[in-house]
């Protein structure tokens, strides 16, 4: 019974609004644009931030990543025909971090070497990643075929390697993948597994290139040494780097920051030049979240202003409507309508107005991000909460801006209202 009554009231409201189609339509536009822009902006913001956060989260919020960085060169060295730079993380650094900082759960050393890989006729440049089996545990990467490196591989110094999906497809092509022998430099390695390729991960250098080959660290060190020689137009560049990266896993998430500080202090003590960089995904994540919050506040304010404007438009029209329909109000009051019933009637009209505006706005607000994604290739995410929020706001705007005109209508003196021309 209550339902049919509300339905009747809403139908009456629509009927009254339809008397002035153009006027109601124009009034609704304010809400349409307000709500539409809220949803569109939120979806663009959400899309951008979720992409960034996803990338950061992939690095692991429990992890700290220490990356070797070539320090700025002094001029005297660059004049020499044979340049030699020694920098980066040491095996000793990794051991010290693992053994002396109690909050560290485990560490994974990584050594990177560029070498050509051959398989029969095919060849391509590979990035050799020398690491320990722990790497596969820490960086959860999907194993597509075979197995990952094991402790036994390290112990036996096995010539085993894993390829990423891309590398495997290009190098092995149609051949049987697992068990194939790939030649890297002068040495042969047995392909023991294939893991999924990860797409580039925002700014932080991790062994994620599409043509990676993973081999045990001690094998890499033994076979290829720590010296990298690069020949460029008549000059020779030598680099001596022990470790390119160390992944540190911290025991618990709330120890991440203090651990990062401890590592920083330790490294500063043992390195004269700052030839490393410490990145903390958790800090980045927090920063990204803070940015997102700020972004949302700014968007919210803009949206709030546009909805305020829309609401004022609605209030303006409703005040005009009340004046116009003064006599109707008088008639209803004479017949026996209570003040709150008059308030209800006009309030429903404003809510219908603002909600219709809101619904159209939602449709537009969903279409705009879709168009942006198609045209600009930008990720957008329309969250269900943003739609619910928009709908809630529409109804609230109707109530807030409809209340004053409705109360004014109800307060009219019935006798004067009946006489109104």
């Amino acid at each position, binding site marked *: *019974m209550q339902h*049919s*009554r509300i339905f*009747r009231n809403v139908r009456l409201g629509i*009927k*009254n609004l339809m*008397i002035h189609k153009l006027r109601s339509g124009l009034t609704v536009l304010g809400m349409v644009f307000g709500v539409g822009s809220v949803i569109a902006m939120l979806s663009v913001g959400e899309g951008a931030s979720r992409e960034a956060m996803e990338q950061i989260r992939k690095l692991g919020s429990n992890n700290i990543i220490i990356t070797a960085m070539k320090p700025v060169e002094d001029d005297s060295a660059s004049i020499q025909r044979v340049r030699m730079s020694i920098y980066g993380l040491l095996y000793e650094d990794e051991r010290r971090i693992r053994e002396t900082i109690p909050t560290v759960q485990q560490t994974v050393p990584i050594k990177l070497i560029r070498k050509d890989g051959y398989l029969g006729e095919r060849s391509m440049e590979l990035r050799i990643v020398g690491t320990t089996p722990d790497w596969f545990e820490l960086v959860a990467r999907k194993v597509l075929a075979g197995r990952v490196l094991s402790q036994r591989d390290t112990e036996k110094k096995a010539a085993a390697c894993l390829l990423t999906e891309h590398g495997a497809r290009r190098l092995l092509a149609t051949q049987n993948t697992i068990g194939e022998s790939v030649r890297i430099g002068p040495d042969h390695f047995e392909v023991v597994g294939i893991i999924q390729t990860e797409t580039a991960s925002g700014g932080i250098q991790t062994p994620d290139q599409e043509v990676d080959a993973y081999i045990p660290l001690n094998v890499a060190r033994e076979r290829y040494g720590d010296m990298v020689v690069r020949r460029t137009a008549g000059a020779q560049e030598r680099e001596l780097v022990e470790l390119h990266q160390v992944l540190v896993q911290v025991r618990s998430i709330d120890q991440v920051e203090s651990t990062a500080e401890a590592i920083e202090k330790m490294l500063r003590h043992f390195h004269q030049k700052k030839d490393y960089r410490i990145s903390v995904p958790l800090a980045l994540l927090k920063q990204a979240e803070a940015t997102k919050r700020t972004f949302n506040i700014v968007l919210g304010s803009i949206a709030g202003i546009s909805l305020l404007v829309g609401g004022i438009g609605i209030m303006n029209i409703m005040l005009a409507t009340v004046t116009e329909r003064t*006599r*109707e109000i*008088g*008639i*209803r*009051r*004479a*017949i*026996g*309508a*209570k*003040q709150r*019933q008059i308030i209800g009637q006009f309030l429903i009209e404003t809510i219908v107005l603002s909600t219709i505006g809101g619904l159209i706005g939602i449709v537009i607000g969903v279409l705009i991000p879709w168009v942006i994604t198609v045209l600009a290739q930008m990720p957008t995410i329309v969250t269900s909460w943003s739609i619910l929020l928009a709908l809630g706001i529409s109804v609230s705007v109707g109530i807030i801006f409809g209340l004053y005109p409705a109360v004014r209508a109800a307060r009219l003196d*019935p*006798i004067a209202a*009946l006489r109104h021309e």
Partner: protein
Amino acid sequence: MASQTAQSLVVLEDVHKIYAMGTQQVRALGGVSLSIDTGSFWAIMGPSGSGKSTMLNLLGCLDRPTSGHYILNGQDVALLDDDKLSELRLRQLGFIFQSFNLIPQLTVQENIELPLYYLGWEARPSAERARELAELVGLADRFYHRPMELSGGEQQRVAVARSLANDPVVLLADEPTGNLDTVTGRQIMELLAELNNKQGKTILMVTHEPDIATYATHHLHLRDGRIDRWEKTS
């Protein structure tokens, strides 16, 4: 008939109504006492400014007396708040106005149903009741029309039908023929007289036309906010 008996439907006791017009106080009614029985048809007459409209507004519970008592069907109106007054109008009164006062965007049916809507009637019985009333006033074929599409006389018939929807104990009519030509006016008056005769509806009507007043059973003459005289005519 007009004696102050316990059964009187409408009792006015020394009713005063004073309006504040700016700093001036205007005395619209100054001590009116009257008793009206069920089933009577009163014509309230008098020159303009005599307090006819004020009296009708008070009788219609649209306003409260400044002092004195108005007892409608045993209830003292002077003591009621706005909500209670509305409730009283809704359940006990029906209004017919000079300018018909139909709601233009509603159909004949919806206009007649208006009191039933506020009484909380369901859609179906409400529609049936409206149909009956439209037939009573001879407008069954105009049921889905809007007021604009009707003649003045037809509009006033709709208004009569609407005033009857809640089966009121008192019908109040404010110059019901004022906007109609003589022939149409007479038809409306015959309709009201019939409601009084056949259904025993108590009708209180303001008019300044002696012709129209002849349909009533009692005449009340007001002058300067007081009862000049009253007489029973039939």
